[in-house]
């Protein structure tokens, strides 16, 4: 008993213009010249866990398969080690493209929900925004509560270890001038980067906050 799935892609599956949109973001231009050699996947320490290899992500972006790319685990598995960017023979800044795709996935709200990595990014951002600093152990606690309560229980031993070694602060770290940072962020919210003259960034900024 098994179910067959059709894997064919139709032209209607493409979101035409998506590839161009990504490659027109500064830093992502070279993607157009990808020769699909697979060096990125070959050097990526995490490619072995990815649903699409980094090389495939490049091909999918270029061919406008927006939904496939933004839903992929690959972009979230990228740990930003920059090995691919360093090695790419076409000088494609693959890590930056992954960031670009992460931002788009967040913005479109189509990232995998229970997947802990985008949740971490969200929570991290929230904490950094609110307090100006990140207290790692609290962040980890929140993360586990949101994604996998069992994992949190499994980590109690690590927490205890950190505590006894003085590496588990019991109070929140934060900056003194929280309102200053808040004001800065509000300023950003009020400027639309796309409305700026000579803006090279294309309509993907999402300064409206989350």
């Amino acid at each position, binding site marked *: 008993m098994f179910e067959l799935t059709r894997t064919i892609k139709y032209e209607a599956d493409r979101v035409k213009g998506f590839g161009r949109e990504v490659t027109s973001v500064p830093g992502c231009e070279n993607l157009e010249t990808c020769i699909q*050699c*697979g060096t990125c996947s*070959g*050097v990526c320490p995490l490619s072995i866990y990815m649903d699409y290899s980094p090389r495939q992500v490049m091909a999918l972006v270029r061919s406008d398969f927006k939904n496939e790319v933004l839903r992929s685990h690959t972009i979230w598995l990228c740990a930003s080690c920059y090995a691919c960017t360093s*090695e790419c*023979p076409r000088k494609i800044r693959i890590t930056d493209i992954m960031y670009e795709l992460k931002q788009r996935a967040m913005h479109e709200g189509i990232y995998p929900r229970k997947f802990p990595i985008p949740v971490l990014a969200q929570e991290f951002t929230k904490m950094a925004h609110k307090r100006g600093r990140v207290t790692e152990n609290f962040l980890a606690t929140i993360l586990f509560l949101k994604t996998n309560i069992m994992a949190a229980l499994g980590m109690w031993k690590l927490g205890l270890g950190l505590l006894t070694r003085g590496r588990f602060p019991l109070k929140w770290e934060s900056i003194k001038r929280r309102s200053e940072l808040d004001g800065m962020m509000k300023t950003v919210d009020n400027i639309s980067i796309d409305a700026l003259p000579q803006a090279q960034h294309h309509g993907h900024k999402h300064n409206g906050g989350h």
Partner: protein
Amino acid sequence: MQMDNQKAEVRIGFYACHCGSNIAGMVDVVEVAKKAGKLPHVVLSRDYKYMCSDPGQELIAQDIKEHKLNRIVVASCSPLLHEHTFRTATEKGGLNPFYFHMVNIREHNSWVHTDRQEATEKAYALTQAAIRRVAHHKALEVKKVKIEPSVLIVGGGIAGIHAALTMAEAGKKVYLVEREPTIGGHMAKFDKTFPTLDCAACILTPKMSTVGSHPNITLWTYSEVAKVEGFVGNYKVTVKRKPRYIIEDACVGCMECIKSCVYKEPKFADEFNEGLGKRKPVYIPFPQATPQVVLIDPETCLQLKTGKCKKTCVEACADRHAIDFNQKEEFIDIQVGTVIVATGFKTFDAERLPQYGYGVHKNVYTALEVERLVNASGPTGGHVVMRDGQEPKSVGIIHCVGSRDKKTNRWCSRVCCMYSMKLAHLIKEHTGAEVYSFYIDMRTPGKGYEEFYDKLLEEGVQFIRGRVGEVTDWAYAPGEDGKLVIRVEDTLAGYVRRIPVDMVVLASGLEPHKDSQDVRRLFNMSCSTEGFFLERHPKLAPVSTFTEGVFIAGCCQGPRDIPDTVAQAGAAAAEALVLIDKGSVELEPNTAYILEQECSGCKSCIPLCPYTAIAFAEDRNKAVINEALCKGCGTCVASCPSGSIVQNLFEDEEIFKEIEGVLAYE
């Protein structure tokens, strides 16, 4: 010559070429011709489909006669392409060819612009400039230069060898200059040649020895071109002969000196075997080296280094007296009519890609090293044994090392796919090892090449499409301990794979020599952006350069395989033969002369001339230009404070009129 047109009425004929749609597609040539027809002195203005065609040229000749034209302007392609054609047509009409001027509205206009109105406007402006200019043209006479019936060939690889033999067989005097102690180049190091797998030595060495013994060929190995002066037909070349500490004429190649050297065993890295074998300080690069003359390496020879040696070699040489420890660098001047540059390539230095571990892991080899390993006359006698003494059971060949990579060399080196497959075949044949070939795209465009690929597939070579990420010696999975592990995405199967192998072969790409820029300057050639020598035209003049009489052949122009190299060498030889057999070459009459009545005798022009063509006549207190020495750059003209120097074809008045013309549009 012709009647003196100077005082006669100027009657200009103008022709605008459509060049099919090449020009007419972007420039309204009909409009340009129509407007040009209304300009002063223009008697006749036409547009025509293809001016360079026979009927087009005929049209000019006819019109000159019928309409009594005495100036011709053609607006078409680049003068570098067809100026000669139209000058000939002008001459055919009975006019001095230098009453012609050409307007470039294709390369400089229709092909590079996108707005029809702007392009047309520009074409008309350039036309006006030419029409104003041509009125001031004068009848000139071309200079003919005799061509010395000899050729200098730089580089003794297969390209140089083939060109030398072709020219020598045609009865021309050939000077073949090679930097290394022997000719043969890279090909001499190869074992087999793809795709036929015939033995490289078997097909090359007979040609080498013919070069060595041919009466028309003077072979100077271990020599370099130091200086080149003059121009087509008459190049004066200085060749530097490095001391090999052997009197070439006296040495018979008996190699007794090598046997008797105080070093009983070969001790020093052998360059010919890519450092895989050893040689003595006195050595011959390989048995079939041409010339069959030994040489002494001053870096390792005891006598040359310390002056303290028993000189057993001299004893062994006995009364031949071929060894001369006092030999010095020598410079020889020769006179040649033409030059063929065939300086070849250098292989990419694999250490520049540290992720592949060359120089770190001893069982990582370059392809050229493996050529020596599989070669029966190589350091291991043709046994593929690695630096650790083992025969490999599994081998990974990595393509595109230093090719198709924006961080190193952008180009495809063209030969690596094929030679990698050849090595895969040979390694399999010699050792029965499992061979993996990692490629980005398999490039086999050549006669019998794709069939060779087929053969390799049948032989069971594992072809994996993916550029290798890294070669490491850290083991993770079972079976990886003590091996070199290749990590790669198998892009066709869709998996990242780790493949442990005993030996890694890096298919290094081809690149220009480190000193290619110096060679280029020596012969006044151009380089393309990559550093390979630039041909005059990529399609129609592939072995010519921008310097008249200097031709190029082989990999110095770009990566290519042996068949293409030989074909190109033949072509270069043929081009050189054409020049020589023609006996003379016509030079542009663009030389400068002095208007004596204007010259104030200030001498400021004299040091400016790089050809010392300007002398000073003390008796008259005037500068004098020697026309035979003048190359026509016009630098003195631009610098003369009294305006008393005139350059033919580029007179001040002509250029001022051109400036006026290009700015005369509305």
